[in-house]
């Protein structure tokens, strides 16, 4: 029987092995440095950029864009999802339009967005918010639609007010689905930001990577990619924490 210790260690054997192999491959010249820098080069780049404060600055800029765009798009999506889930009138007026707009890939708007906003912050916020909006909207709407009718009828028998109905039945019932939307849109958030920053920006991780490419500093490019990955993982962990914290009643999340 595997012990707890080996269960925590074993999953990391493969990645550590791969990094070691990568280091050796570059050091022995099996892979040219101008194709892929060695892990040690990446580490050096990290210390250098972390030391002069440049890295923190770019990470901070990217993080701020991601979160602000997520907050704007997420809140609008959640709000419209609630409105359309709770009110037939609201749904009749807006849902078809939203579903139509959904079919336009938001990244296809980049040329337009550059014309509209240039390479300013608005461009990035707009794209991230737009990308994040739909998963949150769709899943909130679906969550509310799929709230157990039997529970609503029960609440009716027990004389729940409209407010109690919302806070005690509808919202908790829709929450698992809303959080699925949040988790999914966190992925879209990073993806959108990477693309937007790579194409047009004067700061941020994507900009850092593109700058480095111009000077063939591949170790910085790889570093930026790794940091994107880490931030993505962080966002996912936060979403998972939220799920565990709010859905502890659900055996699937315990």
């Amino acid at each position: 029987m595997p012990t707890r210790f080996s269960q925590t260690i074993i999953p990391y054997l493969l990645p550590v092995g791969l990094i070691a192999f990568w280091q050796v491959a570059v050091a022995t010249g099996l892979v040219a440095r101008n194709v892929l820098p060695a892990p040690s080069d990446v580490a050096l780049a990290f210390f250098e950029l972390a030391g002069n404060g440049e890295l923190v600055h770019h990470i901070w800029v990217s993080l701020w864009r991601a979160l602000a765009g997520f907050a704007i798009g997420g809140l609008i999506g959640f709000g419209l999802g609630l409105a359309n889930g709770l009110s037939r009138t609201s749904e009749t007026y807006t849902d078809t339009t939203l579903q139509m707009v959904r079919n336009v890939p938001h990244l296809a708007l980049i040329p337009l967005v550059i014309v509209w906003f240039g390479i300013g912050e608005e461009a990035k916020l707009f794209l991230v918010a737009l990308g994040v909006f739909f998963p949150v909207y769709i899943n909130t709407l679906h969550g509310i639609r799929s709230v157990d009718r039997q529970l609503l009828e029960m609440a009716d028998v027990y004389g729940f007010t409209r407010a109690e109905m919302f806070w005690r039945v509808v919202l908790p019932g829709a929450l698992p689905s809303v959080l699925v939307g949040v988790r999914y849109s966190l992925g879209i958030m990073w993806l959108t930001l990477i693309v937007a920053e790579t194409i047009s920006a004067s700061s941020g991780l994507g900009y850092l990577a593109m700058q480095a490419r111009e000077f063939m500093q591949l170790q910085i490019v790889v570093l930026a990619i790794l940091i994107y990955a880490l931030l993505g993982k962080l966002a996912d962990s936060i979403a998972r924490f939220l799920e565990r914290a709010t859905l502890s009643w659900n055996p699937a999340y315990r």
Partner: protein
Amino acid sequence: MLEALTATSLAPLQRDRTGAAARTVAEPSVATGGTAVSITGLTKRYGDKTVLSGIDLSFRAGEFVAIVGRSGCGKSTLLRLLLGLEKPEGGEIRIGGQPAPRAGGDVARFIFQEPRLLPWQRVLDNVALGASRTVPADRRRPLAQEALKEVGLADRGGEWPSVLSGGQRQRVALARALVSHPKLLALDEPLGALDALTRIEMQGFLERVWKHQGFTAVLVTHDVSEAVALADRIVLIDGGRVALDVAVPLARPRVRGSAEFGAIEGQVLDRLFAGR
């Protein structure tokens, strides 16, 4: 919903102001007894399909009535009308002499076939939501604890509903219905989803709680022997009308194997199959 709530929960308050008696609504463990129900000419249609056509029935206060009938004959519809969850096309229901209130009051409670507990609330909070709206929020949990004790789950209040067994969940639903000491309890095949052993155990529970609290019970069941075991009276509905209305004059607790038990069960079953 809001209007219904204020209308039904303010009524006892106003009566108290004129009367001398103190409010007893909030007192735990008071056997509030049952209420008489009279149904006259009750008719219900869905589209052009008439489900109930002129039902006349009256239940004495504290009576235990079982309603049987083939699937789709309108048993659930009758209970839903009784609770004000649907509106009839014709006829009248009076509960305790008053026109039946809209859903949401404290007089009547409903037990569904499924427990319908809020999965995101602990057992105790699920029971507490059944407390009368006239009880201040901080007194609801003690009342809920009392009700949990009555169904033998006093120590499970802190659990999530998902960890309980099917029978335990239905007992929690029973506690939730009883915490406000309703005068009328409608039960729609409440034990239908349980295994045979748990079902018999639950029938015992139900009978004990009914004896203790004295509410009028209207139990819809597809199990004729369950009806004979529990009810004072069995009403059979067929073709939208009352097809049979027999008293069950057996002493409690009832012995399933006895000849009288079998005779009544046979009588109801015969009529049930004669309707085909």
